[in-house]
Each structure stands twice: as structure tokens, then as C-alpha cells.
């Protein structure tokens, strides 16, 4: 594994590789496995990601009943927009038969739908790929598949992009943290957005240096983000934070592709993220003792969940 983003970029640039290819070569050295074996392993993860997108778009509910169905809602709105765009029958007021159309366009609207889908499957105890964590598992597939679609990327390019994201994530883990309990949501959704931004730039044909700028720009947009889950569950606000994080990742990728540089280099941003995490109070690091978790609505949800369970039959007790 690389010690820094700078080292990853240097190796890739000097050898005319993508950062994904450079990260895979290093992983082969570290693990003693062939690059073919590593590719198959990553292809398996890509397939699980794709499957979880499909299942989430079809509509799932969480075990608590608190969340679900939003990926489907987003996908339907997006499909609607596509049909309108194709047939050019949008009403003069910018709506389709009175229903307001999404304004983000592609790949953003798809990325939001896919991120919601995977995060909802996770909340519903479905199978996902932690990337880097289960709580932030929607961001990377959201960006990957939506950007892949508009650029016509095949599976081998998507696999390469996952190695790019993984190489970036490994540096973050080494220099800082990927745990919400240690660093807040910036360490989970923030890291996922940074990884996804690098993957997006690589798919779009950007240079290694541009990938590094995308990492820095995405991370800076989410620094300080706290982890304040209602009732301690990976649902509110986690699912929708996955969706909003894809917007940050795409904005960062586009800035980097336009040649915009981050004034603070990626490695220093990563260090800053770790330092900010250590300064966050415990109440904002996954303990459900602060932030959204203790709002009137957050507290009401907790008491409703407890009341439901107290009343519910508990067949497993003393079964």
C-alpha cells in the first residue's frame, strides 16, 4: 500500500499508469497474488454493487420500518425526466403534467438514485460491499455506475476505477481513519466521496494528478461532517448523506477535470480530517447523543421504536 496520495500519483505518472493500475500493482506485491486474481476479486465486488443497485431501485424497507422506497422515488422521477426530454413534451412551466422535474440532470440524478438504492439495501439487511464502510456504501457505486453509463465504460474500466478508489481509501486508512466512531461521518461519507471522485476522474480520462485534486476537493467539501444517527441506526441521516455526498464527489471531479487545483494537497487534507475527527466531541461520533439524534423528531422516533418493540410479540425471547 502507498504511504501517501503523492506517492501514488508519482508512481502512476512516472510509469504512465492510471492510479488504479498503480494501486493494483502494489496490492499484488503486498498480497503475493497475481493481478488476474485481484481483478477477479474486484469483479466479484462490482457484481455485488450492481446487484444491490438493482434491488434498491426496485424498493426495499429497513428492519425498523423507518426508511426505504426513496431510491425508487428518485429513479421514477429521473425516468420521467428522460421520457420528457426525449419526447420534448415538457409543459411550458417546466413540469411534466404538474409533477416538477428533477433539475440535476445526468449523471447526478442517476448517482443519487443509485446511492440511495445501495444505502437502502444496506439498511434492509441486504448484501452490499462496504466502501469504505457499510454506512457509506452507496456513494462509490452511485458515482461509479452513473459516470460509467454516460461515458460508456465497460466492466474492466469500472474494475480499474474501483482499484483507484481502493488505493485512495487505503491511504486515508493509513494516514487518518475510516471510522465514524473515531472521526465522524467525514471519515465515512467524506472518505467515500473522496474515493469516488478519484474513480470518476479516472473513468473520464483524467490524469493521476487530477485524481489527487479531486480527492482533496471532495474531502474539503465534507470536512467536519458529524456522525449523529437517529436511534443509533444506520438510516437517518446516513442514507440521504450517501446521496448528497455523490453531488460533492461529482462537483470535485468536474473541477479537477477542468484543471482546477486544490490549494491544500490531498495528503494534508487527509491529515486535517483525522485531526478534526479527534477534536469532535464524543456526542458527534456515532454515539447518538448529539446533533440530529437529539432533535425533537429524533427523540420522538426513538420513543416510537421502543414503544413498537415493547408492544410487539417477541417470539425469540425464551424460544
Amino acid at each position: 500500500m502507498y504511504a501517501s496520495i503523492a506517492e501514488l500519483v508519482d508512481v502512476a505518472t512516472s510509469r504512465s499508469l492510471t492510479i488504479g493500475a498503480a494501486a493494483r500493482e502494489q496490492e499484488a506485491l503486498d498480497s503475493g497474488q497475481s493481478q488476474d486474481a485481484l481483478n477477479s476479486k474486484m469483479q466479484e465486488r462490482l457484481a455485488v454493487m450492481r446487484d444491490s443497485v438493482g434491488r434498491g431501485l426496485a424498493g426495499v424497507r429497513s428492519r425498523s420500518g423507518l426508511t426505504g422506497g426513496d431510491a425508487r422515488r428518485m429513479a421514477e422521477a429521473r425516468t420521467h425526466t428522460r421520457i420528457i426530454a426525449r419526447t420534448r413534451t415538457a409543459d411550458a412551466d417546466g413540469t411534466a403534467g404538474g409533477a416538477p422535474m428533477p433539475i440535476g440532470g445526468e449523471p447526478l440524478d442517476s448517482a443519487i438514485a443509485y446511492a440511495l438504492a445501495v444505502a437502502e439495501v444496506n439498511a434492509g439487511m441486504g448484501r452490499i460491499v462496504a466502501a469504505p464502510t457499510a454506512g457509506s456504501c452507496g456513494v462509490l457505486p452511485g458515482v461509479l455506475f452513473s459516470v460509467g453509463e454516460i461515458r460508456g465504460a465497460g466492466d474492466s474500466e469500472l474494475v480499474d476505477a474501483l482499484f483507484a478508489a481502493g488505493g485512495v481509501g487505503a491511504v486515508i486508512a493509513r494516514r487518518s481513519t475510516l471510522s465514524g466512531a473515531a472521526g465522524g461521518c467525514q471519515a465515512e461519507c467524506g472518505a467515500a466521496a473522496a474515493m469516488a471522485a478519484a474513480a470518476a476522474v479516472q473513468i473520464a480520462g483524467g490524469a493521476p494528478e487530477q485524481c489527487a485534486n479531486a480527492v482533496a476537493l471532495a474531502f474539503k467539501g465534507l470536512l467536519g461532517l458529524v456522525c449523529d444517527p437517529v436511534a443509533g441506526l444506520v438510516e437517518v441521516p446516513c442514507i440521504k448523506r450517501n446521496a448528497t455526498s455523490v453531488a460533492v464527489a461529482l462537483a470535485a471531479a468536474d473541477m479537477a477535470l477542468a484543471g482546477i487545483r486544490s490549494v491544500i494537497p490531498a495528503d494534508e487534507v487527509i491529515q486535517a480530517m483525522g485531526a478534526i475527527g479527534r477534536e469532535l466531541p464524543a456526542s458527534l461520533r456515532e454515539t447518538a447523543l448529539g446533533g440530529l439524534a437529539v432533535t425533537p423528531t429524533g427523540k420522538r422516533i426513538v420513543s416510537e421504536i421502543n414503544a413498537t418493540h415493547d408492544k410487539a410479540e417477541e417470539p425469540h425471547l425464551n424460544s
Partner: protein
Amino acid sequence: MNGIFDIIGPIMVGPSSSHTAGAVRLGLAGRAIVGGQPSRAALTLHGSFAQTYRGHGTDVALVAGILGMRPDDERIPGSFRIAREQGMEFSFSCADLGDVHPNSVLMELAGPNGSQTTVAGSSVGGGNITITRIDRFDVDFTGTSHALIVSYRDQPGVIAKITSLLATEDVNIAAMRVSREGRHARALAIIELDQPVSREARALITRISGIDTVIALPPVAPA
């Protein structure tokens, strides 16, 4: 640790690496320690496990692990039904287990041979676990490598005989911890290994004078 597949991965059933995937692994470790599927499991949840187990599926995850499922098994949400079908009784309670990690469980397991074993462990983040107690012995191992759990009567030479047998089998010891209830009383050795121990070698170790039981534990968590 922290290779690329720890970052893009693991493949797991959600929603939480610590409260779901880690709980499956704790159940798997418990199953391995009692040497197969228990007939009965009484599980006591502590701290964050006790507060949020329903929403995170920590309860179904623990039962799934005890049934031998891996963290990516899509049958995990239905583990209660499968346990009933297979005739494994289980129950849950919540209690303060004292000065332990917030994500901790105490598993009282009736083994396949009728023996009762108590296993305590914690999910320490990212799906990684630590087993902290087996019966009355404090232990500390992560289940990332092969391990031998040897119960014996404390006397000189037992450990030397075990380790020399492992040496002749070309099995390398990565870590070892020995504890005992008192001099010449019941003792427990946890020996973490780089290679698995063959069935034959395990049988030879069991025959060493003073040794009661030898359990060979496969890895339950990725290294």
C-alpha cells in the same frame, strides 16, 4: 490490514460492520469454540449492542453466526426461523457486563456433546472481533488466524510438549497466551498459528498427559 479489499469490502449483509458483520463473526467464534452447533444459546447483550440490537439486526446476526453462516450470507435476516427448523434454542437478554467494550456479548452455549461453555467477546470496529473470555479464563484473540484452545491441568512441561509437537508438524506459532485458575489447577492456552493443525496432530496433542480438551479454531475474521 487495510489492503485494498478491506477498503472495497468486505461483501456483507448490512447495516453495520460492527453491529452486524462483527456480530456474525462473534457467533461463528462461539460455534467453533464449542466444537459445532450448540443445542441451546443464551445470549446477553451489553452496551450499544443492548441499545440498538433490533435496528442493526445484531440478534439475528449472532444467531446466524452460531448456525455457521458467514457475514455475507443472505439468510442472516431469517436466522431465527432457520434455528428453530434445526432445533437450536436461543434466548436474549440485556445486562451490564461491566468494564468491557460497548459492543459486547456473553454467549452461554450448550455444546453438541452436552457440555456448557461460556464465551464473551466484543465487536471492535470494521467487523473485527476480540474474544475476551472462555468460561472462567480471560483470553484475548481476534480470530484472524488459526488457533488452538487447549484446556489442561497446570503442571510443568505441558506447553513444551505441545509446542514441540507443533514444531515437528512444521506449524508456526504466531502468538500464545496461557492462564490458569491457580497452581496445579485448570489452565487454558490459546495458541495462534500461521498454519492449520492436522486432525492427526490434534489427536496427538489431546493424548499428552494432563490435557483435557483441544479445540482447533479456524479463522472467523479476515486478517
